[in-house]
């Protein structure tokens, strides 16, 4: 589904990302781990054509992302709060995204009804603008909004951060569910090794912009990752 070749990003002399080749097949749940500055967000930003690669290219379903925009209808993402519109209420925001993705209000409402557990009564009908919600609740809104419009590729940067324990557990269930029938490709980055090993079938470790590990998740994976980051 996603294929990158000879992808590098340099700022001045500093190489922040250097990935020779990476292929993520359709329906995979893909986890990206690494310390701060490892290049996780840089990689996601390149996938979304928010920054330009220094060399190389990214193909999303055979569409080269920095030359065509045809990847946008089937790709969605939540990277950070710049993906939220602060002066809208959560409902308005969901409908806005829905309208951009050709979903009627009823479609959106139907989707939202599946997430009432996840929202925990703190999102809908709260008479609050997004800018006045807590960090965790903002994140919930952003994550669920990225599910609107049946995207085939979903990119979530640090989705577990700022969420309370109950919501973290629910989010794991949701992500597992998404990739169950191998239709949707989910890309997740995280600092929490336990969460990624639980949700992702494949884990790639970035260190200083380069891939240092590419693991099919198994029972030993968590141990392996802990040794890597601990040592």
């Amino acid at each position, binding site marked *: 589904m996603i294929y990158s070749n000879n992808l590098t990003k340099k700022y001045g002399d500093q190489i922040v990302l250097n990935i020779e080749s990476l292929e993520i097949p359709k329906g995979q749940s893909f986890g990206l781990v690494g310390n701060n500055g490892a290049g996780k967000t840089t990689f996601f930003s390149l996938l979304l054509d*928010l*920054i*330009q690669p220094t060399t190389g290219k990214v193909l999303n379903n055979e569409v080269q992302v920095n030359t065509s925009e045809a990847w*946008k209808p089937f790709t969605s993402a939540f990277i950070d709060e710049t993906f939220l519109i*602060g002066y809208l209420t959560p409902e308005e925001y969901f409908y806005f995204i829905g309208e951009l993705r050709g979903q009627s209000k009823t479609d959106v409402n139907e989707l939202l009804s599946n997430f009432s557990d996840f929202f925990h009564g703190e999102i809908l009908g709260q008479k609050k603008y997004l*800018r*006045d919600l807590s960090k965790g609740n903002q994140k919930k809104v952003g994550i669920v909004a990225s599910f609107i419009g049946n995207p085939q590729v979903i990119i979530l940067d640090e989705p577990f951060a700022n969420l309370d324990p109950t919501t973290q557990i629910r989010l794991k269930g949701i992500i597992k569910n998404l990739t169950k029938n191998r239709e949707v490709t989910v890309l997740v980055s995280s600092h929490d090794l336990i969460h990624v090993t639980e949700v992702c079938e494949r884990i790639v470790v970035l260190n200083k912009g380069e891939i240092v590990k590419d693991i099919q998740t198994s029972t030993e994976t968590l141990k392996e990752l802990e040794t890597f980051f601990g040592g």
Partner: protein
Amino acid sequence: MIFGALYFIAIFLALGVGSYFIIKKEGLGDPLRFVNQYMIYYVVMDIYIRYMLQKMPILNIKPLLYLPFKKSQVVFYSLGKTIFSFFNWAHAFFFVPFSIVLLVEGYNPLGVIGWHLGIMALFYCNNFINIMMNNKDSVFYPLVALLAILGICQYYGWFDITVFTAPVFDMFYDIPWTALISWGALAALCFAAFGYFKRNMYLDAGLATKHDIAKSEDYTWLNRFGNLGTFLKNDIKLIKRNKRSKTTVIMSFIFIFYGLLFFTGSLEVYENPVWKIFAGIFVSGGFLFSFGQFVPSWDSSYYPLMMSQNIQYKEYLSSKWYLIIIATIISTILSAFYLFFGLDAYLAVIVGAIYNVGVNSYLVLWGGAYIKTPIDLTSNKKAFGDKQAFNIKTLLLTLPKLLLPLAIYGLGHYLINPTAGYIFVALTGILGFAFKNVVFKKIEKIYKKEKYKTLLAYKQKAA
């Protein structure tokens, strides 16, 4: 801020030096008494402007709370900082030269000094009153309404508040030591503000951020416009729900009255007929200039979302364009009162509006692509303009925006007659309108080209 500030400083200086002689020449009586008569409006206007624009000192206190400072030091520091605010010392540019002129003209030196100091203290009083009002709309708007009513009453001669207030200001001159009273009031306000802030220095008290009660709005009537409607809905909410954009709308409303300077003949430099068009363009284009020049910066806080969503630039830009057009038409209708100054004056406004719609609406959207200033929607900082907004490209784009229509009019006016001038300018506008699709494609290309630079610039938070 810098350019707005320089503009006001220049005006204040000019008025400070000149108003004595102007009042004298117009035979309005003793200049000092005349100024005192209207001083009450000046003082209240000052509060009004501060309320709209002056930044609250409490905004940056939070990080200081847990550091090893005494609370009183923190309060002292943040209140003290406001003393050096532009909104305080700007008045000096009027009052210092005016007072000097008074002294030169042989007014009683002691009286002038008393008057000067007394008035200055009043502005500092305003400073603290504004801080204590701390964005309380319930106090502020009734106050402004009252002033407006009093102003109307005075205009029609029903009731003249200045009869009661002028003697107060006169007193500062007649009995110089009474200036101490206003300094006393200032000291009292200082203490009150100090105590008030010290008591309320908690995150859930004085430092709490106000949360608006949100109400979801559908605007279903916009649905018929398809994707364009989606953006229009969003833009209307953007304008309605953010402080910065509301200020912009108010500013563009004030622009409507800008033409008074020209059509009343109050400023001699503006009497050349060509300037009528200049006025017309500003009167109808207040919103166009103040809002339009910051497209796409209005969306800066969520630009990455816009860029990764399923969005066509064309629809995005069209929505902004329609907003600008609608606002231009509304401004033109509202400015129908220029008919009092003759059909000619209103014609200038209408012709200006046509040029704005047909030519300037594209030019501001085009220029906006180069103004990569992130906007903090929730604060009014930099609402007056910002030095980054003045780069060479945008400067070059102002030429066709403002000077070209003047030249076109001049051509018609001097070669044929004034009517031909109007027709020429209007025709240019209509011609521009016809090329909408071509121009939009061009602008789209520029936006795409600038995309990465824009994203990077918006990442640096509005400082």
